[in-house]
C-alpha cells in the first residue's frame, strides 16, 4: 500500500487532502466531523481582527453553473470571512487540534494591512497550538473593498511586506494564499518568497458572475434585484489553477517553494495532477460542499490504488514529477508529427468529427454516403479537435508518424531529430543550431 502521509513544511498529515479555508471549516462541529471522515488537515476559515465580526448578506451567497442532470461544474460565492467572534474561533481551534494531533490545523488570517493588526492577532493564533497560518490574500469580494484579501494579493509589494511581518511575529510555517485575479501569478509568488513565506497556496477564487437572471436583469447570485462579482471555484477552474501552479513550480525564482494546490480538486485524479505539477498537497472545498465530507474516502482510495499501480511508494515520489515537462511553446518539437486515426469498429457514426473538422478546422475528414468517416492524411494537421468532440472513448486517437515516414500533408519525410521554433527557418529570430 502506498504511503499517503505527507510532510508539508514539517506539518504531518495522514493524507494530502486538506479542506480549504471556506464554509466547511468555519467551526468546530464541521471540522471534527471532517476529521472523523478522514480529511488529512484543514485550513480554518479566515479569521479577522478582534472586534465586531463581519456581517454577511442575508440572501443567496452562492451562484452556480451546471452540466446535465444538474451536475455542479462551477460555484461562486459572495460570503466573507468568518462572521463568528474571534475568541470563539480560537477556542475551538485549540480544542480540535488538541483532540486531533495527527491532523494538520492551519489558521487562515486576514486583518487590515498594517503591522499592528498582524502583530496583535499572531500570538493569539500561536496559543491555539495550530500548525501554521495561511494568509488570505485572495478573497475577491467584500474584504478587498476594505483593503484586504485580493487588494493585498494583487500588489506584490504588500504581499512581501505582510509576509515579512508574519514571519517576524509568528514562529510556525506561513503559507501565502494567492489570488488568480492578476496578470502574472509569478509576481506575487516571488514576493511571498522574498517576504520569507514557507509556502504558497493557490488558487483562491476567480472574479466571476455565474449567470444573469434574464427576467430581473440581475447578475446571479441576486440580492434584492442586484448582484456583485463573486469568487469562482469548482471543477471549472481546475485548468486555470493547474497552469498557475505549474508556472510557480517552474519559475527559477520560486522553484522549490512548497505549494499547496487548490482549485477544483474533485477526485483523486485531480489531486494527483496538482501534485505532479509541484503541489505538496491539495486543498478541497467545492467537492466537499457538493457531496459532503465522505468524498475524501474516494480520494484516498483512488490515489492509493493509482500509486500502487504505478509503483510510487510515497507522495513525495509524485510531487513535481511533471514539472520538467512543462515548457514554453517555442520549445515544442515541430518534428513530432501525428495523424488522427478513427477506429471503425468503435465508431458509432455520429459524424461529430466530420462536422467539427469540416466546419471549423481543416476539412481533413471524409464522409461516405453510408456514413463512414475517414481521415485524409494529406489534410490532417493533427489538431486533435476530432478526438475531443468524439463521444466514444478511444475511438479517435493520434498516431505518431515514425522517422522516415512521409507526412502526406507536407510531402516531407519525418525527421528523427528534435527541432523547435527557435531554430526554424521561418522564425526571424532563429538562431542556428550550434
Amino acid at each position: 500500500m502506498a504511503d499517503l502521509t505527507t510532510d508539508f513544511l514539517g506539518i504531518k498529515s495522514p493524507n494530502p487532502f486538506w479542506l480549504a479555508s471556506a464554509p466547511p471549516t468555519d467551526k468546530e462541529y464541521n471540522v471534527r466531523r471532517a476529521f472523523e471522515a478522514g480529511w488529512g488537515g484543514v485550513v480554518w476559515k479566515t479569521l479577522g481582527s478582534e472586534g465586531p465580526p463581519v456581517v454577511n448578506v442575508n440572501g443567496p451567497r452562492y451562484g452556480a453553473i451546471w452540466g446535465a442532470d444538474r451536475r455542479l461544474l462551477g460555484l461562486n460565492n459572495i460570503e466573507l470571512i468568518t462572521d463568528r467572534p474571534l475568541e470563539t474561533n480560537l477556542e475551538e481551534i485549540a480544542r480540535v487540534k488538541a483532540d486531533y494531533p495527527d491532523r494538520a490545523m492551519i489558521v487562515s488570517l486576514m486583518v487590515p494591512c498594517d503591522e499592528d493588526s498582524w502583530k496583535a492577532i499572531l500570538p493569539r493564533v500561536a496559543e491555539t497550538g495550530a500548525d501554521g497560518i495561511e494568509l488570505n490574500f485572495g478573497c475577491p469580494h467584500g474584504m478587498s473593498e476594505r483593503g484586504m484579501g485580493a487588494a493585498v494579493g494583487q500588489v506584490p509589494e504588500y504581499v512581501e511586506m505582510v509576509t515579512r511581518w508574519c514571519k517576524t511575529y509568528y514562529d510556525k510555517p506561513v503559507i501565502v494564499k494567492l489570488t488568480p485575479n492578476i496578470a502574472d501569478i509569478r509576481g506575487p509568488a516571488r514576493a511571498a518568497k522574498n517576504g520569507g513565506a514557507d509556502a504558497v497556496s493557490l488558487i483562491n477564487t476567480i472574479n466571476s458572475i455565474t449567470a444573469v437572471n434574464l427576467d430581473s436583469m440581475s447578475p446571479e447570485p441576486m440580492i434584492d434585484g442586484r448582484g456583485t462579482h463573486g469568487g469562482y471555484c469548482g471543477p471549472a477552474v481546475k485548468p486555470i489553477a493547474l497552469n498557475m501552479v505549474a508556472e510557480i513550480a517552474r519559475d527559477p525564482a520560486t522553484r522549490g517553494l512548497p505549494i499547496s494546490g487548490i482549485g477544483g480538486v474533485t477526485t483523486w485524479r485531480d489531486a494527483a495532477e496538482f501534485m505532479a505539477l509541484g503541489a505538496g498537497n491539495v486543498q478541497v472545498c467545492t467537492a466537499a460542499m457538493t457531496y459532503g465530507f465522505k468524498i475524501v474516502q474516494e480520494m484516498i482510495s483512488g490515489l492509493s490504488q493509482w500509486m500502487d499501480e504505478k509503483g510510487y511508494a510515497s507522495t513525495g515520489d509524485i510531487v513535481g514529477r511533471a514539472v520538467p515537462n512543462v515548457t514554453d511553446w517555442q520549445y515544442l518539437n515541430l518534428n513530432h508529427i501525428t495523424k488522427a486515426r478513427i477506429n471503425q469498429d468503435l465508431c458509432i457514426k455520429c459524424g461529430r468529427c466530420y462536422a467539427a473538422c469540416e466546419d471549423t478546422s481543416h476539412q481533413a475528414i471524409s464522409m461516405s454516403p453510408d456514413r463512414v468517416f475517414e481521415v485524409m492524411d494529406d489534410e490532417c494537421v493533427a489538431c486533435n479537435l476530432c478526438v475531443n468532440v468524439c463521444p466514444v472513448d478511444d475511438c479517435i486517437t493520434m498516431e505518431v508518424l515514425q522517422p522516415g515516414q512521409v507526412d502526406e500533408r507536407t510531402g516531407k519525410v519525418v525527421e528523427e531529430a528534435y527541432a523547435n521554433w527557435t531554430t526554424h527557418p521561418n522564425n526571424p529570430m532563429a538562431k542556428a543550431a550550434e
Partner: protein
Amino acid sequence: MTAPQRSDGVMPGRLGPAILEQNFRDAYPPLNPHEATVAADRCYFCHDAPCITACPTEIDIPLFIRQIATGTPKAAARTILSQNILGGMCARVCPTETLCEQACVREAAEGKPVEIGQLQRFATDQLMATGAHPFQRAAPTGKTIAVVGAGPAGLACAHRLAMHGHDVVIFEAKPKGGGLNEYGIAAYKSTEDFAQRELDWLLQIGGIDIRHGQRLGVAISLPALQTEYDAVFLGMGLGGVNALGVPGEDKDHAEDAVAFISDLRQADDLAALPIGRRVVVIGGGMTAIDAGVQAKLLGAEDVTIVYRRGKEAMSASDHEQDHAQRKGVRLIYNAAPVGIEGNGRLTGVTFAYTETRDGKLVVTDDTFTLPADQVFKAIGQTLEGVPDGLKLDGRKIAVSGAGATSLDGVWAGGDCAAGGDDLTVTAVAEGRDAADDIHRSLMG
C-alpha cells in the same frame, strides 16, 4: 358466486372502476422538465443525423432536442410541428424503436437510444398546453380543396393547404375527426381525449371546414368533388376488414379487432364493455397487439395472440410484443386458424401449425384448440368502395410522386394509398407532401 374475472362468457364489469382507471392510464407517463433536460443531454447532435433520415416526416430531431436542452421547448415544438403537424400524436404512437430511435447512434453505442419519442411529446405538450397555434396562413388564394377523410393523412394535408392560403373542406364519414387517432390505437397511448384536443388545436389554423357523415360513394362522389373543388385529396384509410375464411366465423363474439378497439376508445364507461374470460386474437400487427393488451386490461383472464408466421415476420415491433407479454398476453407464432369451435356458443379456436416450405407458408396437420369465449380478428384492413377510374396498385390506390393518382387533380395518401408503412407518421408525411404538390400545381 364466482368472481367476475373467473366467470365464463363475455360480460362487462370484470374489473372495478379503480383498477380500470389504473390499467388505462398513460402507458408511458410524460417526462417532467428535469427528466427532459437529462434525456436531451444524451443527444450527440449528430451531423446529418441518422434519426432524421429514419423519420418519415424528417423532423430535425437533433435541433429540437437541443432546443429542449437549452430551455426552449416551445421552439422545439415548432421545429417538430413544422414537419409533422400531428407531432403530438406521433410522439405517443410512433414505433420509434423501429424508426428514429433505432437509427440513433446511441442505440449502436449502448443499446440505449435517446428517448426521442418522449422528448417530442414533452416539447409538443408544452406548446399545446399554451393553447396557442404556432402557424399562420398565407394570403388567401381563392382556391378550395376537398379532402376525403379526417384522419392523419387528411388532417396533415388540410393543415398544410390552409397554411398555403387555400380553403379546405374535409369530408368525414364518422361523427368525429381524427381517423385512427380517434377510433384506432390503444386507449393507453392517447389518454385524456388527446386525439380530439389535437384536432381542435390543429383546426385553429383556420380555413378548414370538417363535414361529418360524408362517406365517399354514399353521401359524396369523386366526380362531384372533382367538379366542385379545385383539387381533391383522398385520405379515407382502409374501411374494410379481412375475413378469416374459416368455419364458425359468423358466431357471436367472433369480432373484428378494429371494432373492439373503436368501441373501447369511444366508451364512456370501460366497466360497461363486455369482454371474454378467455380471449384469442388472430393476427400479427399493431391492431392485434392493441386488441390483446386492452382485452387483458379490461379483465380477460387469459389472452392469447396467435400469428401465422414467425416472431420476426410480425409487423408489430419487438417492443410492442414485449409490451404485450409484460401485460400478461401470451403470443403463439406459426399457427393459422382452421376453425372457430362451439355448438352454438363460441367455445374455442382450432389452429394448425404452419411451416415455410420453398418460401411458401404451408398449414400442417398438427392442430390444437384454444378455449375461448371471444375471438378478435386482426388480419388486416382493406380499401373499400374505390371510386371508378382510379388506378390501383395491388389493393390500394396507385400514386406517383407526392401522392398524384391516375386522375388529374386527385391526390391520395395515408393507408388507402399504395407504398409506405401504414403508420400515422407516414400518413402525415404523405398528406403534407401531397398538399405541397397540390399547391404547386394550383399556383403554377
